[in-house]
């Protein structure tokens, strides 16, 4: 019964020992393939390199968010402050740069710092005050929303400096920089999760914080760091969105918050924490982006898209097997 399948070994290496749902990951990538094929059948132009690249660009914004979401969810928490962290940080960029290229570095650094600060607040509250992460991040999200509205006066003013456009429009080795950024960070995440001490602490904290704590792991620091990473990722996503859209919109982050969680779960990460790998989440992100594009191609009404989106999530959860839920 010794099946040393080449693909299983590669996936083994990538996901590490930390009990990831390999079946889910392979199924997820299979669905990505299915979606690309279906898209190609509906419109041959869909599988053209330019079109697929565009899909990747769309996916990179969501993808960066899922990095932070994965890290947080692995610890058994959740970050619902995605939408307005994104929004506030893009406002920060436009406010600092005022549409000019000269201060772009300061703008980006400040935006990332703001994201980190938000993450720090979330993390400290969850780790040291034992506040439920769902409620805390929800409250913080509301406060950020109010803050952003007050600061902008609800006027979505602010154009992105032209140089940001390069992230989306430019090409390095034929790929847009934003996609390379996402995939690069994704590789880094996979490595950190599978091969570093910090990555291990994320899993053990998610599995059982008590046991981890008693084993000498500084679980509180792990949780704080996880939320800081999430905050920085959300800020980065805001910057990427800005590159894509060219200007700030209000509520620009709303369409990303819940799909990020969905992508993480579709990627095989347990929502309860403690197991999963970013390898699958990359596929999960692609599935969501491709699904929306394919449904638009098929002229499915928005109502139908919503229903299919929900059914797809449920379907995949059932197909993955209920090893995570059975742990209860």
């Amino acid at each position, binding site marked *: 019964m010794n099946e040393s399948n080449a693909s299983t070994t590669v996936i083994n290496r990538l996901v590490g020992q930390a009990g990831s749902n390999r079946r889910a990951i392979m199924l997820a990538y299979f669905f990505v393939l299915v979606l690309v094929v279906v898209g190609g059948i509906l419109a041959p132009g869909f599988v053209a390199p330019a079109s697929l690249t565009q899909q990747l660009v769309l996916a990179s914004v969501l993808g960066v968010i899922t990095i932070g979401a994965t890290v947080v969810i692995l610890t058994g928490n959740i970050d619902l402050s995605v939408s307005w962290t994104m929004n506030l940080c893009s406002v920060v960029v436009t406010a600092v740069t005022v549409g000019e290229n000269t201060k772009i570095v300061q703008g980006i650094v400040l935006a990332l710092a703001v994201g980190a600060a938000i993450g720090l607040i979330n993390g400290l509250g969850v780790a040291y005050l034992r506040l439920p992460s769902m409620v805390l991040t929800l409250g913080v999200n509301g*406060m950020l929303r109010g803050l952003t509205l007050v600061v902008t006066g609800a006027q979505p003013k602010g154009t992105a400096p032209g140089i940001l456009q390069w992230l989306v429009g430019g090409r390095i080795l034929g790929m847009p920089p934003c996609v390379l950024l996402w995939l690069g960070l994704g590789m880094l995440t996979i490595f950190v999760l599978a091969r570093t001490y910090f990555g291990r602490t994320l899993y053990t904290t998610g599995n059982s914080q008590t046991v981890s704590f008693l084993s000498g792991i500084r679980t509180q620091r792990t949780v704080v760091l996880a939320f800081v990473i999430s905050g920085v990722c959300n800020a980065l996503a805001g910057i990427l969105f800005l590159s894509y859209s060219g200007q700030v919109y209000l509520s620009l982050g709303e369409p990303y918050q819940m799909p990020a969680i969905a992508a993480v779960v579709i990627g095989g990460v347990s929502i309860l924490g403690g197991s999963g790998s970013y390898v699958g989440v990359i596929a999960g992100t692609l599935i969501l982006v491709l699904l929306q594009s394919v449904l638009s191609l098929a002229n499915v009404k928005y109502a139908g898209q919503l*229903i299919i989106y929900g059914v797809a999530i449920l379907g995949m959860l059932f197909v993955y097997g*209920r090893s995570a839920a059975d742990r209860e």
Partner: protein
Amino acid sequence: MSAEPVRKKTFNIMRHSRLLLAWTVLILLLIVFRIMTPVAFTLPIITATLNQGIALSLTGVAQTLIVLTAGIDLSIGAIVTLSNTVAATQMRPGVAPTLGAAVLVLLVGSLCGFINGLLVAYGRLAPIIVTLATAAIYSGIALYVLPNPGGFVPEWYGDLLTGRAFNTLPAALIILVLLVVLFWLPFKRSVLGQSIYAVGSSESSARMSGVNVRRAKLLTYTIAGTLSGAAGLFLSAQTLAGDATQGGSYTLNSIAATVIGGTSFAGGVGGAGGTIVGAYIFTIIPSVLFAARVSPFMKEFLQGAILVLTITIGAAGVLRMKNRLDILR
């Protein structure tokens, strides 16, 4: 039922501390409101204020039931939206058809909740992701039912639910009283109600004590769906129309009302009484801000801040921990 030794029923302040705190905040807010606007306590304003909080009270109670089982329901807003659209498309001018439509809406809400419950209790899937998916499904169905805002809701129906009986007693107040007296209090003492608290406290212990955990959860989600349907019915009465884009905010706001009212997310602690108070704290803030001529954008900020403050105060006990291990309770 609990086998308590027979003793004098003293009112234990500490046990009800969260509820009392919520009431205190509400009363303080009302005082501020009255200071800002002299007309705050006139009958029309009282009626309007009460009306504003009904839908949130209903959805808040629905969410509370689920949070008590240590679950979460992210589809509450979608069920409200779906109920609103069904009401607006099914109601007709006559009394009987309208009542029939109302019953249908409640059934639809219950069915939505029932599906949630099946997936969570029997499908063994995590509530957060199940309800996230079903929220999308119910929202989609709502859009199919009513692609564009409109529909028909009889005016007499709207007046009935949002008006005053005998020109003095706001219908909203009657609804609240019925909700607490006819639903919550008996429910809390019933076998199902006690089971819900047990399941939220410790699911494994409840199971080993003979509680039918799956059935309890299934019923909880179903009842929550019914309540959300009722909230949708009230929304129809308020807006006299259907709108498939309205209602989503009730999801997160119901969580806020639940938390502000003192229900713990760990499960097993709290109740609907506090949630209703929490719902009104949440809805009165914008009115107070408006009266104080503060920027309306501060509303979101303050609502978020109240939420964070509530859980922080609740967590104050953590700072008194002597044994570091207690922190992980």
